[in-house]
């Protein structure tokens, strides 16, 4: 049983397109996150939801819109894709106090051409 699953694993698309990445966790965690890992492997938080409520929204272009239909799901929709959006996007989940750390999904490699 995969604890945090992301789909798709790979996504190649043209500039200007709109795409979505889905994330689901079966750990019973209340908090979910989206992180972006750039070409230099730097991980930066984008969004965090706690029990469907947006609680962290870092400086991210408003072309990126997260949606959490329930606490087990956090999807990421990206409008008008740009070349600079190419990266690996990781979903993660945790308990709110984070002392146990995050559980990460395996990542979605987005390539914009």
């Amino acid at each position, binding site marked *: 049983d995969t604890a*945090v699953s992301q789909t798709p694993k790979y996504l190649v698309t043209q500039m200007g397109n709109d795409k979505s990445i889905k994330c689901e966790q079966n750990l019973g965690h209340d*908090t979910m*996150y989206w992180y972006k890992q750039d070409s*230099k*492997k*730097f*991980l*930066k*938080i984008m969004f*965090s939801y*706690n029990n469907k409520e947006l*609680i*962290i929204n870092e400086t991210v272009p408003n072309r990126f819109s997260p949606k959490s239909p329930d606490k087990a799901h956090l999807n990421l929709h990206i409008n008008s894709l740009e070349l600079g959006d190419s990266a690996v996007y*990781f979903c993660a989940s*945790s*308990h*709110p*106090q*984070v*002392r*146990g*750390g*995050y*559980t*990460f*999904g*395996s*990542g979605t490699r987005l390539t914009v051409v």
Partner: protein
Amino acid sequence: AQSVTQPDIHITVSEGASLELRCNYSYGATPYLFWYVQSPGQGLQLLLKYFSGDTLVQGIKGFEAEFKRSQSSFNLRKPSVHWSDAAEYFCAVGGANAGGTSYGKLTFGQGTILTVHP
């Protein structure tokens, strides 16, 4: 603001040698500290964590780390490295804010690539 510095971008060791990966953090309160490992094309796996108590923590795969508050460090160690340990290692910091709650924001270092020679 919280931050993490991993001074070594790339470390090479021989199989069987000891290993220490450095991590320095900046955090305004008592930190929660973590080490993650990422193999090529994979997600991040938690190796170990510290949030209170004994400052020497044991993790999976024979790794350990020591929290030194006076040095703001949380270095990762392994006495004898195996070829399968070759990967990228990330240190992260997070914790409760001044109000005693936290929504779990972890800040990661830039990673250290470990190469293991046979």
